[in-house]
């Protein structure tokens, strides 16, 4: 009787081990599916962002080409002829040139600039 009772005992350890293994396998499987699903989702997102970036680059290029066209000499001259913009020529009488005597074409240097040196420079020099 006792032996029979002993034989019918539930093998808890083995059952637990089986359950753990089953859960582990199920978890691995689900993780794998979830991971693959996530990869797919991320991939779609990457693709969508790439497409958006590509579109933006194309729009940028198109805008740059249009700016170049609209600011070209020929287009501006056409607009000028149409009267859309007006240009006032700079007359010779409005050109004033200021330079030091004897240094007509040479750039002003520190040695020749005594009379024109900014005050702040003098302060620093002192």
């Amino acid at each position, binding site marked *: 009787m006792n032996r029979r009772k002993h034989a019918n005992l539930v093998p808890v350890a083995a059952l637990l081990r089986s359950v753990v293994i089953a859960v582990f396998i199920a978890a691995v499987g689900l993780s794998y599916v979830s991971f693959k699903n996530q990869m797919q989702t991320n991939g779609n997102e990457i693709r969508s962002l790439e497409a958006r970036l590509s579109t933006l680059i194309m729009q940028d290029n198109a805008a740059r080409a249009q700016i170049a*066209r609209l600011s070209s*000499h020929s287009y501006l001259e056409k607009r000028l002829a149409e009267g859309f913009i007006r240009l006032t020529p700079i007359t010779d009488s409005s050109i004033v040139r200021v330079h030091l005597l004897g240094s007509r*074409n040479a750039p002003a240097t520190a040695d020749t600039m005594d009379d024109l040196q900014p005050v702040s420079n003098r302060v620093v020099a002192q």
Partner: protein
Amino acid sequence: MIGSARVRALVTCCALALCFTGFSARLVHLAVTEHDVWTARAAEKHGIKQIIYANRGMIVDINQQTLADNDPVRNVIADCTLLTNPDEAADVLAGPLGLDESELREKLASGRHYVVLKKDVPEAAAKAIRNRLSVRSIRGISFEQDADRVYPNGAMACHVIGFMNGEHHGVQGIEAQEDQYLRGHEGFRYTERDRAGEELVAYRGEERAPRDGCNVRLTVDLNLQNIVETELDAACAEFKPKKAIVIMMRPQTGEILAMANRPNFDPNDVRTKPVSYIQQHEGDMKDCAITDMMEPGSTFKMVTAAAALNEHTVRPDSVIFCENGAFSYGGRYLHDHHPYGDLSVEDILIKSSNIGAAKLAMGLGEQRFYGYIRGFGFGERTGISLPGEIPGLVYPPHRWSKLSITRIPMGQEVAVTPLQTITALSAIANGGHLMMPQIVHDITDDKGQVISTFPPVEIRQVVRTEAAHEVTEALKGVVSPRGTAALAKVSGFVVAGKTGTAEKIDPKGGYMQGKYIVSFCGFLPAENPAFVCLVMLDDAVTKPDENYGGQVAGPIFSRIGEKAARYLNLEPEPEVPAGNIVITQREHD
């Protein structure tokens, strides 16, 4: 009963075992033995190699103004294997693409993987089509990225910039010369797609990023180019020449500031026009400044005078007897336009005496004179970064006739390109240094990093600085009331230059009666030149007594010079300096 159950179980087990063994064997066969076959088939069905296009580099002027750029467009591609209903797709696409519906239906029913339906569809139109396809759930139509080359300034500087063919290769000008830099490198990506044709990003394989083409920055200044082109158009309207050329160069560095030819063309049109149109207008597309050679005429006398002065065979004030207008040599007479007696070397240039120039060369001797001709760069390519340049034609002395020593000094029996002429005058203007003409300033990559610069290259010192200055002094006299180019003067500046009037060579031999190539090549300010400019007109329609370089090309130079001087903010010669700070006011021109 028990026995039969056991037998049945055994049979079932054996059958299952056999079955699975069969499956296993088949799996091993597919996965191992036929691995390559099935991998290839899977790759063919799902795997694709995506091309990632690289943008072609831009061409810009010295101030970064765009000369050539890319306008993004799409090519509409059909994968007919993915189309479930070609008729519906044809119905949706025919209108927006402007295609014949029956032809389109035929294309879509072909069953091919890759069919180009339409090229160069603007981005906005492509987007609209994509939306319509999406609404109707039509699969199998894709939009490949592409770019149309655009030249925002139209025909301006067309011969310098060049153009491209339908295969995106540069054909002429900078587009051809710098094609390897401009082109860039396409990238690629191996990837897979699902049944709907959508890419499976997770299955991306080997990938190489594209590298955009480099940007080429020219030495050309678009504002100066505009001045030159405007005046050239006005000149062509007035004189209706067969060809006209203007080149502007910075003599100290050899940088080309502007270069224009007539006839010209709009490079935007080239891709859209049929081949027959291009063949018909091939001549218009030639950059005559470097591909045409002609006798230079009297502009060549500056070479003769520079050589004589450099060799000390004469001084600027040395007097040469000009035979009163008729010089008999080698059994033939050489004439001057007006009879002159004694002329100084300076006056030989100022009056453009043929006899005087001939005597200067005779004083040098053939070999030395030839050495200077070659020294100034005639008879060899200048080395400019443009395709198709020719070296011109200069015979060595052993091939000269007895008359050559009297004809070459006045610009006959030699053939030069306009670029060689302006390069030679630049050498006079800058104190005797022959500079290599430069058209490319630098090349930058797509991130703006400079990868190549082109510093000025001095080919050689042709003449001493003193000799160059002596020639310059004489050339100043040319643009004076005493000289042949009084009309080339520019208000407020001292101009030095030389006129040229060359008879056109008849292809059948001899010269063409009444046909001339007139030119003026000058620089300003004479003492410290900011630019050298050559104006050349081939067969200008004008009165016979006005068909001279000084009369036709001189005024064009004057107008260009005046505008260019103002643009470059060159200061006119001061009148009266007063006090420590001088305020100069220009009078109204």
